[in-house]
C-alpha cells in the first residue's frame, strides 16, 4: 500500500473517530476514546499486519512532527492570562507541588529501577527515567472535562482538577523540553558545541519568533482563511524548526500557542481553529504511534509495571501532600489525585517525541511504558474523575442544603 493511500485511510479513520466515536463514547460510557486507535496502529504496524511498514511510518515523520507541534500549541492556548488570574493562586500552588512531586518520585524510582534491572550506571539511567517522569506527570484533561461535564457542576473541586491537568501538561512538556536540551547531541556552532542553556533558549526562542511572525503576518486581518493559513504556517514552521534542530516541537509550539492566545485579537478564532484540527491529528498520531511501536530489545515487563504502579502512587500521594500542605485537604479530600491518574494523548506525544529524539536511550521501553499507561488508564480515567467528584459534590450539596435549612 502506498504512502499516500495509507495517509488517506488514516485520516479518514481519525476523522470518523473524532466526530463519531469520541463524543459518543465519552458521553455514553465515560470512556476517553483513543486507545483503540493506538491498538489499530499496532495491528496495522510492522509487528502484526505489516500494512504500515517502518519505511512508511518513517516517511510520514513530518506529519507526526506536525501533530506533536499542534498538540503543543493546543496546550499553550490554555494559558490565557486574563482567565488564569481569575483562579485563586492556591490552585496553581497545589497543582505545581503535585506535578513536582509526581515528577520527582517517578524519576527517582525509575532511575534506580532502570539502573538495577538493566545494569547501567545511575547517570545512564537518568535520561530514560527523566523522560518517564515527564510522561508520568501528564494527566488527561479530557477525562476531567468528561467527568465534570457529566456532573454538570463547577466549583472548587472541578476548578482544581482543571488547573492541575493544565499545569501537569505544561510541567511535562517543559520538563521534556529541558531534557531534550540537556541531552542534545553536540552540534558545533561558531567553533564550540552549544550548552544546554543555549539549546533551551533556542527552543523557547523558536516559539517566541513564531508568535511574533504570526502577528506581523496577520496584522489586522480577521479573514478566516488568512488566519488559518497564518496559524497553520506558524505551527508548521515552529514544529519543523524545533524538530530540525533536534529539540522538542511540543515545547516550542506551546510557547507559540501561549503567545498567540495572549497577544492576538483573534484569540477565539485561533483557539477554535486549533481545537478543530487537533482531534483528527491526535488520532492520526495515535495510529502512527501504534505503528511505530516495537518491543524493547531488553526485558521490559517489570520496569513498565513498576512505572505504572509508581506513577499512580505518586499522583495520589503527591496530590494528597499538595492538598494537605496548602490547607485544601478538607475541600479536596485525601484521594483527589485519583482523578489525575488518566494519562491522555499528551503522554503519548511526549513518548513519541522521545522515540524520535536523537541520543535517547531505551526509547522503546519508554514508549512501551507510555502506551501501557495510556491504554490502561484511558478506559477508567473519566470514571475515576467521577468517583472523586461525586462524593465531594454530594457533600457540598448537603452542606448547602443544611445551611439553607
Amino acid at each position, binding site marked *: 500500500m*502506498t*504512502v*499516500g*493511500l495509507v*495517509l*488517506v485511510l488514516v*485520516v*479518514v479513520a481519525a*476523522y470518523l473517530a473524532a*466526530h463519531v466515536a469520541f463524543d459518543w463514547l465519552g458521553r455514553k460510557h465515560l470512556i476517553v476514546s483513543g486507545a483503540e486507535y493506538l491498538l489499530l496502529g499496532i495491528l496495522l504496524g510492522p509487528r502484526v499486519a505489516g500494512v504500515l511498514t517502518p519505511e512508511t511510518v518513517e516517511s510520514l*515523520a*513530518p506529519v507526526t*512532527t*506536525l501533530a506533536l507541534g499542534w498538540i503543543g500549541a493546543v496546550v499553550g492556548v490554555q494559558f490565557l492570562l486574563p482567565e488564569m488570574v481569575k483562579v485563586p493562586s492556591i490552585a496553581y500552588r497545589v497543582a505545581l507541588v503535585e506535578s513536582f512531586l509526581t515528577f520527582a518520585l517517578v524519576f527517582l524510582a525509575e532511575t534506580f529501577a532502570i539502573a538495577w534491572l538493566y545494569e547501567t550506571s545511575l547517570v545512564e539511567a537518568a535520561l530514560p527515567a527523566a523522560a518517564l517522569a515527564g510522561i508520568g506527570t501528564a494527566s488527561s484533561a479530557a477525562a476531567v472535562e468528561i467527568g465534570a461535564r457529566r456532573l454538570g457542576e463547577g466549583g472548587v473541586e472541578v476548578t482544581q482538577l482543571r488547573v492541575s491537568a493544565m499545569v501537569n501538561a505544561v510541567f511535562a512538556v517543559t520538563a521534556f523540553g529541558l531534557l531534550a536540551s540537556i541531552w542534545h*547531541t553536540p*552540534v558545533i*556552532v561558531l567553533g564550540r558545541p*552549544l550548552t544546554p542553556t543555549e539549546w533551551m533558549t*533556542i527552543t523557547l526562542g*523558536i516559539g517566541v*519568533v513564531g508568535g*511574533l*511572525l504570526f502577528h*506581523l*503576518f496577520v*496584522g489586522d486581518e480577521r*479573514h478566516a*482563511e*488568512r488566519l*488559518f*493559513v*497564518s496559524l*497553520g*504556517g*506558524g*505551527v*508548521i*514552521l*515552529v*514544529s*519543523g*524548526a524545533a*524538530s*530540525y*534542530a*533536534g529539540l522538542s516541537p511540543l515545547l516550542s509550539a506551546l510557547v507559540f500557542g501561549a503567545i498567540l492566545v495572549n497577544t492576538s485579537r483573534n484569540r477565539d478564532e485561533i483557539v477554535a481553529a486549533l481545537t478543530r484540527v487537533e482531534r*483528527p491529528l491526535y488520532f492520526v498520531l495515535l495510529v502512527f504511534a501504534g505503528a511505530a511501536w516495537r518491543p524493547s530489545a531488553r526485558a521490559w515487563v517489570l520496569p513498565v509495571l513498576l512505572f505504572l504502579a509508581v506513577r499512580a502512587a505518586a499522583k495520589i500521594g503527591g496530590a494528597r501532600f499538595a492538598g494537605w500542605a496548602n490547607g485544601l485537604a478538607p475541600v479536596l479530600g485525601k484521594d483527589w489525585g485519583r482523578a489525575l491518574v488518566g494519562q491522555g494523548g499528551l503522554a503519548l506525544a511526549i513518548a513519541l517525541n522521545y522515540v524520535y529524539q*536523537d541520543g535517547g536511550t531505551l526509547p522503546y521501553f519508554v514508549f512501551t511504558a507510555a502506551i501501557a499507561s495510556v491504554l490502561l488508564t484511558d478506559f477508567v480515567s473519566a470514571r475515576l474523575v467521577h468517583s472523586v467528584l461525586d462524593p465531594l459534590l454530594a457533600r457540598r450539596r448537603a452542606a448547602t442544603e443544611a445551611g439553607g435549612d
Partner: protein
Amino acid sequence: MRRVIILALLFGGMSLILPLGGGQSSPALLTFGFLILAAYTSGELAVSLRLPRIIGYLLAGAVFGPSVLGVVGEGAREQLAPVSSLAIALIAFLAGAELRWQEVRDRGRTILRILVSELGLTFVLSFALIFALREYVPFLRGAPMATVIAFCVLFSSIVIIHSPAVTMALLTETGARGPVARTTLGVVLVSDVVVVLLFSGALALAQALVPPVGTDAPTVSAARVGWEIGGAVVVGAALGAVIALYLRFVRRELALFAIIVAFFGAEIARLAHTETLLTLLTAGFAAENLSAEAHGAALRHAMERSAAPVFVVFFALAGAGIALADVAAVWVLLIPIVAVRMAGIWAGSWLGARWAGVHRAEGRYVWMGLVSQAGVAIGLARVVSEVYPNRGGQLATLFLAVLAINQTLGPILFRIALARAGELAPEGRAAGTAEDEEDAAPEPAATVAGQAPDRSPA
C-alpha cells in the same frame, strides 16, 4: 514595510536554524512552513506592485531557492515533491469542477478551433525556428538529420504546452468568469490532453528515428497511451460519481474531504496507470455536473480554502526549481524561442477565433492567457531526459529555461488580458459577466462568491 520585515525575519530565522540541524535531521517540515509564510508574503508584495500573486510565489521560490539564497535546498525540494503532486491534483479537480456541461456544449466548438489553430501554428513555428537555429542549439550541433528532426519534434511538442495551474490560480485569485477567462480555461484544459497525446506520438517517432541507447528507456505504445487517456476518463467519472453521492447524502467536513479527494484521486490514478491530471479533471467535472449546483459550489469553495497553503508552496517550489545559471547560459536562444512561441500562440488564437466566429475579445486576448507553462511540461521534459540522457538532458535544460521565462511572463500577460477584456474590476475583483470593451463599458465591480480583492489564490 511590514512584509519586508516578515521576509527579513524569516530569512534571518532560517539562517540561524539551518546550521543547527544534525546530519539526520530533515528540513522538509521546516521548509514547508517557511515557504507558506515567505511565499504568501511575497504574493502580497506582488499584489501591492499590481502584479499577479503567483509572481510573488514564484519569485519567493527563485530567491530563496538553491540558485540564489539557498534557504530552500535541493533535498528539501525533493522531499516536498508530494506537495506539488497534491497541488496538481487539486488544480485539476478544481479546473474540472469549473466546467458545466451546458458550457462545454456552448463553447466546445470555439475551444477546439482555437486549440487546433494555436497548437498547430505554434508547433510548426517552433519546429522551424529550432531547425533553423540547429547549429546554435547545444543538443543539435553537428547531429545527423534524423536526430535533428527527432529532437526538433520533441522540443516543439513540449514547448506548445500551457499551464492549467497558472490559469486556475489567476482565475481563482481574480474571480474572473467572462468569455476570455472561460475560453482560456477551456483551451488550456483540453490542450493538456492533446499535448500528452501529441507528445506520445512525438516520442514514438523520435524513438523510431533515433533508437535510445540501453534497454531501460521507457517505450510508448498506442495501447498504453489509449488506456492512460481513456482510462482516466472512466476512473475519473467513477470517482466523480462517488463524490456526488457524498455531497448529496453526507456533505460534512468539506475542507478535509476536498484534500482527501485530491490525494486519493491522485493515488488511484497512479495505481491505475491513468493520466493524473485528466483523471482528476474528469472527476471534478463529473462531481460538479452530477451534483446540485449549490453542493458543487460548496465543495469548490471548501477545496479552494483548503488548497490555499498547498498552492502557495507549489508555486514557490516551482520557482525554486528555476536554475538561474542555466537560464543565463542559454539566454541568446531563449529570446527567439519565447518570442516565436508567443507569436504562434497569438496568430493561432486569432485565426482560431475567426474560424469559430466568436467575439472580438476572445480573438484579441485569449492568447495572453496561453503563454504560461508549468507542471506537466516539466514532467514531459523529464521523460525526454530519461529516454535520451545526453541530448535529452540538454533539451530539458533549454526547455526549463524557456519555461522559467514563460512562467514569469504568463501570469502578468493573462492578468492584463482579463483587465483589458473588462473581466476584472479596477480593484482586481471579478466582473459578473464580461463585456467587450468596444461594445459596452465594463460592468461595475461585482463580487463573485464574495471574494475579497487580496484573497489568496484559493
